[in-house]
């Protein structure tokens, strides 16, 4: 379908309108359709073979009993995997943890990043230093971020417990293996690791706000909070919406950080859905079942995002 229409469109008026006065339309029609296809194919083939194909294959696998290293052929089992999943309390527990983690990281991350972006948008000294430092977590491999925070959280040689002891707040604890502290500790790392992208996106949004409006509002005697609400926020809102939605998805699907920090422990308290599905697939070889988990995750994310975006966009119209 796309193939036909693309050809029809870009092939419009071949040979005509290459003159100087032909304007925009001709520049897109100027190249023959075969030329466009020649340009697109090198990327299109890998995308189809290694992204779109596997995705469909993965969805199909969810309806089979596919396992690793099996000699009998894989069979269609219909909705069996999903029925099993419905009664799998461990999965739903993991799902609940995943939601808690995704919200627990995304929301504070957004608020902290917004604060930092507002500061960096001011004419402060040392701003360059802050900008440089704010980028560090972005450039680091996630595995290194995990390792680094394990050093911070280390019960004996870690700086966190040493600070706790220095402040006279007790002996400190083993943050990552304590049942109560593991998930909050991991969430803090998640916030730290994702702040740069969020800050940079918001900062770019802030720099698009009309400066004159700010000054006009200030002349009219609007305070900082009012200026933020009436001038700044409407301008950054689209960026804020997009980056929180993306952050939520990325966080819900995150793997490496928690794999390195706790590997899902203690007692499954930090076992995010991705870790759970990874174990099912590559430790127990349950490919079909793990694929079904992936499908459920995608469906859940899509529904939540739809509600979030629709709700937010409506909220924007009301004002």
């Amino acid at each position, binding site marked *: 379908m796309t193939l036909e229409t693309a050809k029809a469109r870009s092939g419009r008026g071949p040979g005509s309108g290459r003159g100087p006065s032909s304007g925009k339309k001709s520049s897109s029609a100027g190249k023959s359709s075969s030329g*466009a296809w020649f340009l697109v194919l090198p990327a299109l083939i890998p995308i189809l073979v290694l992204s779109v194909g596997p995705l469909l294959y993965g969805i199909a696998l969810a309806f089979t009993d596919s396992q690793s290293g099996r000699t009998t052929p894989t069979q269609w089992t219909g909705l069996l995997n999903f029925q099993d999943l419905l009664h799998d309390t461990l999965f739903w527990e993991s799902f609940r943890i995943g939601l808690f983690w995704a919200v627990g990281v995304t929301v504070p991350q957004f608020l902290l990043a917004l604060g930092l972006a507002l500061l960096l948008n001011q004419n402060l000294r040392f701003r360059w230093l802050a900008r440089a430092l704010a980028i560090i977590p972005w450039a680091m491999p996630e595995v290194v971020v995990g390792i680094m925070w394990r050093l911070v959280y280390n019960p004996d040689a870690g700086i966190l417990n040493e600070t706790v002891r220095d402040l006279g707040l007790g002996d400190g604890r083993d943050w990552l293996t304590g049942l109560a502290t593991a998930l909050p500790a991991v969430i803090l790392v998640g916030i730290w690791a994702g702040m740069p992208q969020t800050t940079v996106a918001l900062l770019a949004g802030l720099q698009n706000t009309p400066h004159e409006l700010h000054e006009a509002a200030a002349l009219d005697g609007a305070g900082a909070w009012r200026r933020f609400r009436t001038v700044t926020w409407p301008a950054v809102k689209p960026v804020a919406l997009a980056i929180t939605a993306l952050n939520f998805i990325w966080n819900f699907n995150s793997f490496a950080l928690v794999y390195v920090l706790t590997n899902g422990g203690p007692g499954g308290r930090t076992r995010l859905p991705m870790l759970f599905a*990874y174990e099912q697939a590559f430790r127990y070889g349950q490919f079909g079942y793990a694929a079904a988990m992936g499908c459920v995750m995608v469906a859940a994310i899509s529904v939540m995002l739809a509600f979030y975006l629709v709700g937010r966009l409506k909220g924007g119209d009301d004002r």
Partner: protein
Amino acid sequence: MTLRTSRSARTGQYLALLAYLVFLAFPFLWLISTAFKPPRELGSLHPTWIPENPTLDNFRQAFDEQPLLEAALNSLTAALSAALIAVVIATPMAYVMARHRNKLSAAATGWVVVSQAFPFVLVIIPLFLILKNLHLINSLAGLIMVYVVWSLPFALWMLVGYVRAVPHELEEAAAVDGASRLRTLVSVTAPLLAPGIVATALFAFITAWNEFFFALVLLKTPSMQTLPVVLTHFLGAEGVADLGPLAAAAFLATLPSLVVFVLIQKRITGGMMAGAVKA
């Protein structure tokens, strides 16, 4: 900023900025500090920020314990190849997406967005099966293929923004002067696009260099594994880790991507927004 800010508000702003700086920087400083500490200080119950007897032993030990050089070479091969291939195939496609408004461009943009939402687990199982049939499990070639496709969405996103930033009037002017289509692309568009292409390639390099999940699943033999996977071997069973070498290796593994990132910082943020605003 010409807005007047009261002195107390300014002080508050600086204090807040300081708090952010501390929060963002302290884990990294602690990593560096740990990397240079001798075992006796690492075992101490009162660790200090600055090593009392700094040593390079941890680095030597890290190289003895794990095949770090081999892993770094694997990472470099995978990341460089993936970045080059990704840019070579993404640039023409981004050009078409930016200059032609048709269903194909719309579909490609849709794929760029949607591909962000899918959990890797849904893609990795089929990929694992496909690559296994092709005997590309446990090989860098297989991993590179996966990395190329995996870095395409963001590469396309950035490149489309950069292409749109090249005024098409320039291309038309060249056409008027009698330049062929190819000639125009090579001698007018390409030079203007070059900085953006370099930035995109470097960003693809960093993402591949840092990647963990696909490498963990697809590479089993230790001699084939990339740096992030090898780093996790330092953690050992039950999380009992040799802290010094672990910190040293982690520090070294960060340096390449950190250096590259500093080089392209401005362009990344610019490119990200260029794609975002106009797409």
